[in-house]
C-alpha cells in the first residue's frame, strides 16, 4: 500500500482535455505526491479570494508512482466544485489536494484472483486506473470491464479502453441509446446481461462495482442471485437516494 500524505499539497494543472460534453480530464502535477494505488481517491480543495473553501473527493484515473495524477471530472448540474474544475480551471492554475485516500476499493498488482469490473456512468474512473495498472505491470491475471453508460456520447476514455492492445477487454452496454448498427437494444443491465458478460462464480472472481447507488444496488443483488459470494463483491457508490 502506498503511503498517505495527510496534509494538503498544491497541484497545478499541467494538461486537460474534454472527455465528453460534461466531463474533462485534468492532469495535475503535485510536488510531494507519494503515488497511489489504482482505485484510490483524492480530496480537492478550492479557496475563494475571501478565504471561503470547498472540498470534494474524486477518484483518480491514474495509478502508480510519480507526482502527476489524472482526474476525470463529471460536471454535476447543481455542483459547486465540479463546474469550476471542468469549465474554469486553466493550465498553470493551482488547487490543493489531500491523499491518496481509501485502501479498500483498489486493485494491487500482487492480487491473483480474476477481476471483473462493472461500471455505471462516471463510475468507470477507478477502473480506468485499474486497467492502466494492469497493463503497466504486465499482469497476467484475467481482468475484464463491463461498462454501462447512457449513450455512446457519454463514454469516458473510449479510445483507450477499445485499443486492440488493451490487456483488459471492455464490454459496452447502453441504457439510453445505442450506436448505429448495435446488435442489442438500449436498456438497464439485466441478470441475463450480467450472466453473459461477466466472469461466473465458478471462476471465483473478485468483482468491483462502481456507479450511482441504484446501479450498484441492482447489480450487486443480481450477482448474488447468480451465486457470487457477497464478500467477493466490492462496491463504491456515489450520489444521493
Amino acid at each position: 500500500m502506498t503511503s498517505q500524505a495527510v496534509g494538503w499539497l498544491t497541484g497545478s494543472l499541467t494538461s486537460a482535455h474534454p472527455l465528453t460534453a460534461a466531463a474533462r480530464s485534468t492532469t495535475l502535477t503535485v510536488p510531494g505526491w507519494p503515488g497511489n494505488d489504482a482505485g484510490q481517491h483524492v480530496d480537492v480543495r478550492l479557496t475563494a479570494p475571501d478565504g471561503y473553501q470547498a472540498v470534494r473527493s474524486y477518484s483518480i484515473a491514474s495509478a502508480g508512482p510519480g507526482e502527476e495524477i489524472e482526474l476525470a471530472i463529471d460536471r454535476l448540474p447543481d455542483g459547486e466544485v465540479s463546474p469550476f474544475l471542468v469549465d474554469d480551471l486553466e493550465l498553470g492554475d493551482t488547487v490543493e489536494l489531500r491523499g491518496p485516500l481509501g485502501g479498500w476499493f483498489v486493485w494491487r498488482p500482487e492480487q491473483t484472483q480474476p477481476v471483473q469490473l462493472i461500471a455505471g456512468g462516471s463510475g468507470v474512473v477507478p477502473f480506468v486506473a485499474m486497467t492502466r495498472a494492469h497493463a503497466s505491470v504486465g499482469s497476467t491475471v484475467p481482468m475484464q470491464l463491463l461498462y454501462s453508460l447512457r449513450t455512446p456520447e457519454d463514454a469516458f476514455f473510449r479510445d483507450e479502453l477499445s485499443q486492440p492492445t488493451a490487456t483488459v477487454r471492455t464490454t459496452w452496454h447502453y441504457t439510453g441509446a445505442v450506436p448505429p448498427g448495435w446488435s442489442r437494444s438500449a436498456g438497464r443491465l439485466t441478470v441475463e446481461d450480467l450472466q453473459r458478460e461477466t466472469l461466473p462464480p465458478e471462476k471465483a472472481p473478485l468483482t468491483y462495482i462502481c456507479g450511482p447507488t441504484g446501479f450498484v444496488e441492482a447489480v450487486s443483488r443480481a450477482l448474488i442471485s447468480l451465486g457470487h459470494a457477497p464478500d467477493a463483491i466490492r462496491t463504491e457508490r456515489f450520489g444521493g437516494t
Partner: protein
Amino acid sequence: MAVFGGRRGDDNPALPPGQHLTASFPVLSAGPTPSIDTEDWEFFIQTETGQTHRWNWDKFLALPSEDITVDIHCVTSWSKFGTRWRGVSLDTLFSEVETGFDFVMAHSYGGYTTNLPRQELLDGKAWIAYEYGGSELDPEHGGPARLLVPHLYFWKSAKWVRGLVMQSEDNPGFWEEYGYNLHGDPWREERYS
C-alpha cells in the same frame, strides 16, 4: 487565472469544518447490501467475561425508544441537517451490562466493523436506530437497524449492526484499518489517521 467563487450557502455555524450541505442521503458501503429478515435478526453486547446479552427483534422493539432529530456528517464531506430517526438508546442497552473495558468494536451483518470508545456511546449520544423519516429503515441505509452516533463521522454509525464486543484497547475497525481516524470527531476534522 480562474478565480473560484463558491456558493457560500454553506457558511453555517452548524456545519463542521470542510463539510458541505446535501439535501439527499448518499449511500456509502464497502460491499453489497445484506438482506436481513427481522425473524433472524439479533443484537448482542459481549463483555470480557464472555457473557453475551442478546435481544431478538421483538425484545428489542419492546425496549423504550426515542425520537431523535440530528445532523449527520460523512467523512466524504457531505452533511445533512435535521435527519429524523427512531431508536433505542445505548444507555438502555448497556444498563444491565457490566464491563471494565473502555472500548467497543461494533460488528455488522456483512462483516463490517468499526471501533468506538464506550463513553461515546453513552449519555444520550448514541442509539440503535430502526426508523428513518417515520418509516422503517431501508436496507441500503442500514435496515433493519443501524448504529447511530451522530456526533462522530457517519462511518462510525455502522449499518446492519448486529452486536458490540467490548475490547480493552481501541483496536481499529474496517475503515480505520484503511487509514481513517480511530476517533472521527467532525468538529476536529479527525478524518484520517
